[in-house]
């Protein structure tokens, strides 16, 4: 009786010690990081597509090794990423909603907006294609979906893709409403899965679609329209406005994306796995060049 009691006491003590040690292990690491916290950590607020497509996992280790910075990736929708920039809660943004980006630039919250890369949006839908949108123009596709009340799954999360989708509906002057228009409130990969399960249409960036293709029966039905261009910019949060921002780190990250090596890595990413690149590197180009095309 007494022995078992001792045993249980010893067990509890052992667990306590183990847990405390585990805690101390973390504590021991923390000060090392805190030597220059403002300098070493970079908070990157970005869209889910750059993470879910594997691009950041490919780029960041190289950048971190070269520069000694540690990048903390907060992958949210572009809307949320821009908000983080506006509040000074991030150091650098990698986003894809040019109109919304310009508004943030106008407030002075961010500086040095530079074009990094592009890919394009596509309409994905079920093979049966109930609204018959295959190979039609963006305008006709949206009209056909609305007229047929075919299921359309929207991101519904104020992300860059959602902003683009709203812009397109606006363009054809249709206010999508009703049971056929479903708002997922989820990331791109999950939205694709929902559209797949419900035999619906959705607007997606090509990178995420390609990365998800193995789980989907959806097909690309509309593509190649100039309106569907998806341009990514990097923006640094203004350290004159937010003193806690890691300005040097933010600039270093932007510079890396635009360096010859960064651009080469972006252009190569996914080529082997998906048979085509997920992003096209555009360092040095301007938006005007795209709209003039």
């Amino acid at each position, binding site marked *: 009786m007494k022995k078992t009691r001792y045993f249980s006491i010893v067990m509890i003590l052992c667990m306590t010690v183990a*847990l405390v040690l*585990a805690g101390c*292990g973390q504590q021991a690491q923390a000060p090392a990081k805190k030597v220059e916290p403002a300098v070493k950590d970079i*908070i990157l607020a970005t869209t889910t597509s750059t993470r879910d497509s594997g691009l950041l996992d490919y780029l960041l280790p190289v950048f971190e090794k070269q520069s000694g910075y540690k990048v*903390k*990736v907060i992958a949210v929708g572009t809307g949320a990423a821009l908000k983080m920039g506006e509040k000074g809660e991030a150091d650098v943004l990698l986003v894809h909603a040019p109109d919304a980006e310009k508004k943030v630039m106008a407030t002075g919250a961010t500086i040095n907006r530079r074009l990094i890369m592009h890919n394009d949006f596509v309409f994905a839908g079920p093979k049966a294609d109930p609204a018959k949108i295959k190979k039609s123009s963006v305008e006709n596709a949206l009209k056909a979906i609305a007229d047929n009340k075919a299921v359309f799954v929207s991101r519904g999360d104020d992300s860059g893709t959602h902003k683009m989708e709203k812009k397109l509906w606006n363009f054809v002057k249709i206010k999508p409403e009703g049971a056929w228009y479903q708002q997922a409130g989820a990331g791109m990969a999950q939205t694709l899965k929902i559209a797949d399960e419900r035999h619906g249409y959705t607007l997606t960036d090509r990178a995420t679609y390609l*990365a*998800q293709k193995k789980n989907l029966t959806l097909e690309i039905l509309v593509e190649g329209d100039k309106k569907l261009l998806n341009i990514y910019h990097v923006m640094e949060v203004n350290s004159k406005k937010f003193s806690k921002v890691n300005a040097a780190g933010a600039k270093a990250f932007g510079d890396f994306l635009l360096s010859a090596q960064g651009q080469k890595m972006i252009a190569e990413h996914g080529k082997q796995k998906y048979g085509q690149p997920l992003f096209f590197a555009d360092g040095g180009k301007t938006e005007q060049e795209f709209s003039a095309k």
Partner: protein
Amino acid sequence: MDYITKGLWQALQLIFGFNQEVVEVAWLTIKVSGLAALISIIIGMPIGCWLATRDFRGKKVIISVVNFGMGMPPVVVGLLVSIVLWRYGPMGWTHLLYTPWAMVIAQTIIASPIIASLSFAAIVSLDPKLRMQLLSLGATSWQAIFMLVKEAKIGLLAAVIAGFGRAVSEVGASMMVGGNLKGETRILTTATVLEVSKGNYDVAIAFGCILLFIVYGVVTILTFIQHNGRQEHP
């Protein structure tokens, strides 16, 4: 169905292959939730014991607050903790946001009320005469509480199990305050969510299985302690 068998197979490979990333994620999960549970015990149990052995005005109000804490939605806790820890938030100077410590804080806030409330229930459900008897036999107030804690061991360890379970299974708050950073604040629950959002369902299932193994392991140890030296049917 294919996903599940594939996931199980992958889980076994990941566990027994000692995939470094998976081991790190699993180890961080144990550290964060274990520490959170430990702090929750230190905070919650004394509160439970105190409420169970003292009578004062307004006690019901405090108990209702503690019980309310049990039902506190983790996302709300996550939101509050991240607002407080933001760079330009009231405690931004601590630089704790997006670190494991932020997750420990959030999980502690979530688990403490559970441990407090369940330990209160465990001790208050003992025979009320027991404490009187102990005191009249000459035990000091502290000795009496020590004896009561020993008597209520089963209930108290149930509280610990529930608290740890809640902390380790939590995802929304950890995601928000930890940021799910690779190699830094990625734990099994947030890793599972990430793999689902990437569409890697088999890897997600593998992470889920590892989480189940860990929870089962810890709960088994606690259950053995709980029933140690005790006969349920004398």
